[in-house]
Structure formats: structure tokens, C-alpha cells
């Protein structure tokens, strides 16, 4: 989607009259390979910005390189460490996805809204799982409520009965998970056969149609699934969606990260236009000028470029979210709350934090 967005940008006249060029490398979702990929991009291709790193391990490994090269890093990783020094000492990192912590806060809002009072948490033992659940527990405590049992479990185990027993012994009314599809499948299957009633709040990448297919409607009935939702009403989303359908033959809602990637390219281009310079730090400062209020709401590069040329300030409303970057370079997307009912995953409402 970066390529598609850049195509649109270039056909609208490019940035400051010049074409944007994209080089792609494969991080193999592995920090060591990512470092070499970044080295190649920064030193061989001399890129000015790196867009689209997804795994926290990759972003954390790459950011010292981009900082050193005074390049901007736009990522969709969850790790809290990316917001602050030493990783973000120069403020060159911009995160287009909710931090793990924000996910946790969203869970807390939802748990409160749904009327739960005795939540317990189960976390997959990796940064994302732990980040989500700890974010939840912090937010829950900040609301003045008491936190329940907290279990961290290892991947690839044949049975999670011991972990479940520990959690269920405290009689929670809901279990908030920081989990993934395979372990969620196993845990829910074991739980169901134990016959102990409890509700579930699960990230939507785990509580998805595959989970329903694996376990069936009876087991998954009533599960609350949560994920960031793209800014689906916006005109920017419509443009992205059209491009996505052309490229992938699927609706743009199929991939939230693709929408983020699209926004990365557009935001960067608009910031360059606003900065009227290719200096990294000027671009960095301009990003907030073009993406945050105040300004005229725009939804595409062409529109934004025109308004900037007319001397107006703009506020790019992105496809993935309204893209208001805070002082750490993080955004706060909206969260969609879905419930699984009779095997269907239905969106119930949206939560803003």
C-alpha cells in the first residue's frame, strides 16, 4: 500500500516537485536481518525515511540506525520503549498503531462499560501479550478498581489446565487475554470442557473467524473481541480502500496495517510539502503540523498539497485513524468492540480512549 500511495502522490505532482521513490527490503521479522536490511536501505539506497516496520524487535533494532542516519522511522509496533529515549531520543519515530498500553486501556474501558467488576488477566509470554495485559491492569487500577489474578503462560504447551485453574480459582467474572490464535484456541477448548462459566475479552487477532471455525459457535458464544479500527468513515479510507481492492481484490478492512502503511506515505509527503525542505528535522516538526489540528481537514495528498500551496494549515485525517500524534509520536486510534454471537463476529460499538 505504500507503493500505491506513492503512486498517487507522484501523479499529483510529487513532493516539492520531485518524485518519491520507494525501496523495499525484507526484515524477516528478525532483528538481525532487520539491521542488515536497514543498513542496505540507509547506506546503499540512501533512503530518508523507513516506513512500515511491524514487529517491535525489528523497530527497536532499526531505530538506532535511523537515528544515526537522521532518518525518520514510521512503524506499527507495540513496544512502549519506542516512545521514549533512548530509542526515540531524536523524536524521529512515529507510531501508527496503538501502543500495547493503549490496547490495555481500551480493554479497561470496555470491561467497565460491560459491567464487569472482577477481571483476571492471562498473558502470552511475549512483549505484546504482557504489554496489553499490564496496560489493562494499570488502567483498571487507575479507575479505582481492584485487579484480579494475573497469569503469564508459555507458548506451545500441550495443556493450559494448570494456568486456567489458577485463574478460575479466584472466580473472576471476565478474563482479559493478551493472546494469539493458537494458544487462545487451546485455552478456550480446555476451559469449555471444565464447565466453569466466565466471560472473555480477547484481542481480535486471536478472536477471529478462524477461532470460531476451530471451536464452534457454542464455545465462542459471547466472546468480546477488540481491535483498532481504521477510520472507516473517512474519505481517506475510501481512497485507500479503492486502491487496496485494486491491488488485493479484497476490501480495505481486511488489513488494518495496510491502511497504516498508506497513511505513512501520505503523511510523510505532506510533511515534506509543509516543511518546504528535505531536512529531516524540519520534516519531523512538520508531521505534527500537517496531521494534528488545527487546520483544514484533508483526506488526500493532492488536497493537502493544494491547500498548503494556498497558505492554509491542514489536518490530515488518515485512513487508519485521525492521526493526531502526541509528544511521543504515538497515535490514539479508535477501538472496535465486537461480540461473537452464534458464530458471527458482530461489531457492537467503538471505544475512544
Amino acid at each position, binding site marked *: 500500500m505504500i507503493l500505491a500511495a506513492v503512486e498517487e502522490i507522484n501523479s499529483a505532482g510529487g513532493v516539492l516537485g520531485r518524485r518519491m521513490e520507494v525501496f523495499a527490503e525484507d526484515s524477516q521479522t528478525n532483528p538481525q536481518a532487520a539491521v542488515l536490511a536497514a543498513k542496505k536501505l540507509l547506506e546503499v539506497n540512501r533512503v530518508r525515511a523507513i516506513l512500515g516496520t511491524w514487529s517491535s524487535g525489528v523497530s527497536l533494532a532499526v531505530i538506532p540506525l535511523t537515528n544515526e542516519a537522521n532518518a525518520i522511522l514510521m512503524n506499527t509496533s507495540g513496544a512502549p520503549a519506542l516512545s521514549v529515549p533512548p530509542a526515540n531520543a531524536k523524536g524521529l519515530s512515529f507510531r501508527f498503531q496503538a501502543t500495547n498500553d493503549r490496547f490495555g486501556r481500551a480493554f479497561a474501558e470496555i470491561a467497565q462499560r460491560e459491567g464487569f467488576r472482577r477481571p483476571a488477566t492471562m498473558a502470552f*509470554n511475549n512483549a505484546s501479550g504482557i504489554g496489553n495485559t499490564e496496560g489493562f491492569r494499570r488502567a483498571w487500577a487507575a479507575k479505582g478498581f481492584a485487579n484480579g489474578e494475573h*497469569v*503469564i*503462560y*508459555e507458548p*506451545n*504447551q*500441550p*495443556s493450559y*489446565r*494448570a*494456568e486456567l*485453574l*489458577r485463574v478460575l*480459582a479466584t472466580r473472576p467474572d471476565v478474563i482479559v487475554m493478551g493472546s494469539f*490464535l*493458537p494458544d487462545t*484456541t*487451546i485455552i478456550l*477448548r*480446555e476451559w*469449555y*470442557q*471444565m*464447565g466453569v462459566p466466565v466471560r472473555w475479552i480477547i484481542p481480535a487477532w486471536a478472536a477471529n473467524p*478462524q477461532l470460531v*471455525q*476451530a*471451536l*464452534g459457535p*457454542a*464455545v465462542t458464544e459471547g466472546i468480546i473481541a477488540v481491535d483498532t479500527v481504521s477510520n472507516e468513515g473517512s474519505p481517506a479510507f475510501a481512497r485507500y480502500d479503492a486502491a487496496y481492492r485494486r491491488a488485493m481484490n479484497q476490501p480495505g478492512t481486511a488489513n488494518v496495517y495496510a491502511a497504516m502503511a498508506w497513511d505513512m506515505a501520505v503523511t510523510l509527503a505532506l510533511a515534506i510539502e509543509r516543511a518546504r525542505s528535505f531536512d529531516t528535522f524540519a520534516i519531523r516538526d512538520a508531521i505534527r503540523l500537517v496531521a494534528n489540528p488545527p487546520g483544514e481537514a484533508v483526506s488526500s495528498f493532492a488536497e493537502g498539497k493544494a491547500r498548503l500551496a494556498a497558505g492554509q494549515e491542514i489536518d490530515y485525517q488518515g485512513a487508519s485513524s485521525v492521526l493526531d500524534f502526541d509528544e511521543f509520536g504515538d497515535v490514539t486510534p479508535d477501538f472496535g468492540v465486537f461480540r461473537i454471537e452464534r458464530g458471527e463476529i458482530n461489531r457492537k460499538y467503538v471505544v475512544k480512549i
Partner: protein
Amino acid sequence: MFGALAVAGIVHGLIIGLTALAVTMAFGIARFPNAAAGDTMTAGAYAAVSVHAATGSLVSATAAAVAASAAVSLAGYLLIFRRLAGRSLAAHLVAAIGFAFIIRAVLGLMFGHQQRVFFLPLGWPIEILGLRVPPLDLALVVVAAISLGFVFALLHGTAIGREMRAVADDPDLARAFGISPDRIMIALWLVAGAACGVAGMMLGVKTVVTPEMGWDALLSAFAAAILGGIGSAPGAVGAGLVLGLAQELSSPFVGFTYKIALAFIVLLAVLLFRPRGLFGQRDAVR
């Protein structure tokens, strides 16, 4: 709570036990630890889940698992391990690791890394002796018992089984009696593979099928094989049960991360204090 953990431990233990059985047989007869046992399990699991998705029958899935794993195991022998006869232990070990990687890579390419799941009806727990046992677990225990029954019947009731046991006890003597090694080996690798297949299917039913599932189970299988005494089939199964139960029952005390290390600790303890394991015949450790 310990009752529920014990039930989980028994199923877990049987899975370990079956793989340990395959490992101990290979260890006892071919005389090296087969590091490809885990990935042979995975191959069986994939065969089973594919057949089950097509037919809905657990019986045919089991048959598919047995056939696939036995075939993979035999292929390993014919293409690799037979050619390594007389070579060092290290060569066997390294080749086994390489074979394991190959199996895993092929499965990954064939089936992708998304999980595959057995669609089985889930039911309410059954009360047995005051314990609530999920019916799925019960079914798995029955499958395991039948498989073990077959293996022991083979080992103790047939000529080839007797010959296999003889070779495990004393290969030189066995050769002196004219027992043909190649026939034994083929039988060995087929049976060991079959055991891995059943274990893989069970693990897949209990959890999910992914390309890494077997490799993750390998260490426990080795620990159980050594605990039970190399070459002792009942030892391997018994040790598997012990290990499975120990892992489940210990988790309230050592935590959910370190219970995995239990296999390693058991391994060390056995090798230090009772190298021939519980039922091993000789101290072949040194």
C-alpha cells in the same frame, strides 16, 4: 485441583510416553538419539488433521498419522541412517537434526504456518472416580492404550519383536545368532515412526497443529526415554507418564515457565544419579 491436573498430566504423559517409546526403541536398537522424532510426530499430525478434515473420522485420521509418520521414519532410515552405519555417533546426531529441519521445512511449505485444528465436538466432563474428565481426554487415553497394546504385542508376541528386543539387549550376540539387521531396522523405524504418528495426532487433537509442535516436544521425549532406561519400552511409557504428571502437578509451585525446565532437570538428575534409568538393563551411559 490436583485431581484435574493429574488428568491433564496423564494425557500429557501418554503423549510424551509414545514419543519416548519411539526414541528409546531407536536409541536401543539403532543406538543414537533420534532428534527427528519430534518432527516425525508433526508429519503424523498433519496427515491426521488433513484426513480428519476430509472424512471426519478419528479412526482414519489415526491410520493416516501412523502411515505418514512410519513412511517418513522409514525414509529417514533408507536414505540417511542406513548409509551412516559404522559412522560416529556425532554423524548420526547431526544428520538426525538435519533431517528434522528438512521435515519441518517441507511441512511448513506444504501447509503454511497457520494453525490447523481438529474439529471435534466438545462435551461436558464425565465423572470418573470423583474426577471430571473431559471426554476428549478419555478418547485420547483409549487411543494411546490401544496403540501401546499393539506395540507391546508386537515386541513380545511376534518373531520380529523378539529379534528387535534381542538386538537391543546385545547386538553382537544377536548378529551371532544370524538375526538380519536390515529387516530389524526396517521394522524398528516403521514401528517407531508409527508411535510418533499416534503421539503427534494426540498432541494435535489436544492442542493445535503447527510446524513447530514436534520439535518443542522433543526434549521431554528424550528425558522420558532416558528416565525410563534406554531400550526399555515400558520404561519409556512409564517415565513419560511420570514426567507428564510431574510437569502438571509442579506448576503451582515452580511457575508456568519453569515447569518446562523440569524435563531438563529430570534428565540431569537421572544421568547423574541413576544413569540406567528406572528399568534400564545396563549402565550404557559412559
